[in-house]
């Protein structure tokens, strides 16, 4: 079937098999490979993207379900090649990653959280990231980065 998705502001249209998952559409049709396939069982969150503004695990959404919708991936966050989104900047500043595999999903889950709750408590950050697993850094620096990004975004 033909699927058309607005990915990071640009229309991507492709003829795909009905069973194509959104994460494969993003990686193979849109050519955006930052969104990782981790567990492939909707547990790890490495494939988290925003679908019409809400975080979803793109390994558990059909490309057909996203037809006509808007998707944002981590590639679409920064406003230019030399810029970083405040959440990306905070992850770098707080050393919130080691291998980086979970990072695109962590960042997108964070963007979704901060869109709904601009000033989360540490506990709220921890529960908002319960669907995203990190196997190397651990969570302390990630939580610190989310809190830093939140305070940077807040008008003082």
């Amino acid at each position: 079937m033909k699927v058309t998705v607005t990915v990071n502001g640009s229309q991507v249209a492709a003829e795909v098999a009905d069973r194509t998952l959104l994460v494969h559409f993003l990686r193979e049709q849109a050519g955006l490979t930052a969104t990782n396939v981790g567990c492939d069982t909707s547990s790890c969150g490495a494939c988290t993207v925003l679908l019409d503004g809400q975080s979803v695990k793109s390994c558990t959404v059909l490309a057909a379900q996203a037809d006509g919708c808007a998707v944002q991936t981590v590639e679409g966050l920064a406003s230019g090649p030399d810029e970083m989104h405040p959440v990306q900047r905070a992850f770098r500043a707080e050393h919130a990653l080691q291998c980086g595999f979970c990072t695109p999903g962590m960042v997108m889950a964070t963007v979704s959280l901060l869109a709904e709750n601009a000033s989360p408590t540490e506990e709220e950050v921890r529960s908002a990231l319960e669907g995203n697993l990190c196997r190397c850094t651990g969570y302390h620096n990630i939580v610190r980065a989310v809190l830093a990004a939140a305070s940077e975004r807040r008008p003082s």
Partner: protein
Amino acid sequence: MIPAPFTYQRAWSIDEALELVARGGEDAKFLAGGHSLLPLMKLRLAVPEILIDIGRLRELSYIRDDGNHIAVGALTSHHDLATSGLLASALPLLAHAAGQVGDPQVRHRGTIGGSLAHADPASDLPAVILALDATLVARGPSGSREIGAGVFFRGLFESALEPGELLTEICIPRPQPGGWSFQKFTKRAIDWAIVGVAVQGSSVALVNMGQTPLRASAVERALASGAGSADAAAHAAEGLTPSSDLNASSGYREHLARILVSRALEESVSRA
């Protein structure tokens, strides 16, 4: 891992969904948020030949105050339940429990109707609607019919929905004044409950203590005859035969049920 091949069809109205499922027959299944069905399809535990996507039926996503009861559209997401101001005041048990399902990403996609129609005894919301004495509304080729939550869950992954019927609404009576609680025990935050319990006033329902969500009848009888929380909770596993699996033995589930029912009754009393 991708599902086995199937044909995807999208319904733009309830009538179209019913037509498509009638045409598809036994090989067709409705797809709502897909967060129960798609994982099963990847594992080949479900192999439907036709998926009818009802995700665009926005008319089935609502939470409405109908006076004596609250009407919830079957396609309302867990996230919308958890963040609804109306539910927070009228049915805090449902709002709170919906906020405990899976994780934020799952709650953005998963729907109450999908969860109920899937009839997994380890899911949170089936036990909640049982404790709330909800009525489910299904539409089929010959019109709508109402099914009480107490007779909706027939067996493991088996509901009272007939082939060709679509769950459209969950109708929940406003509870009598009283407390409520939802407790579940999981190994990791996002896991299914090993055991869970939903309490609304003197109604007590259990997650994952049998082939279906169950009312803890022995606990309810003890409460009705004046027992305190701790004494009533001792009856939590009475007459039940929970399964043994990788996560817990049957005996451990019985132990968890007594502990969780005790905590839930105490919390409920403290909120009353």
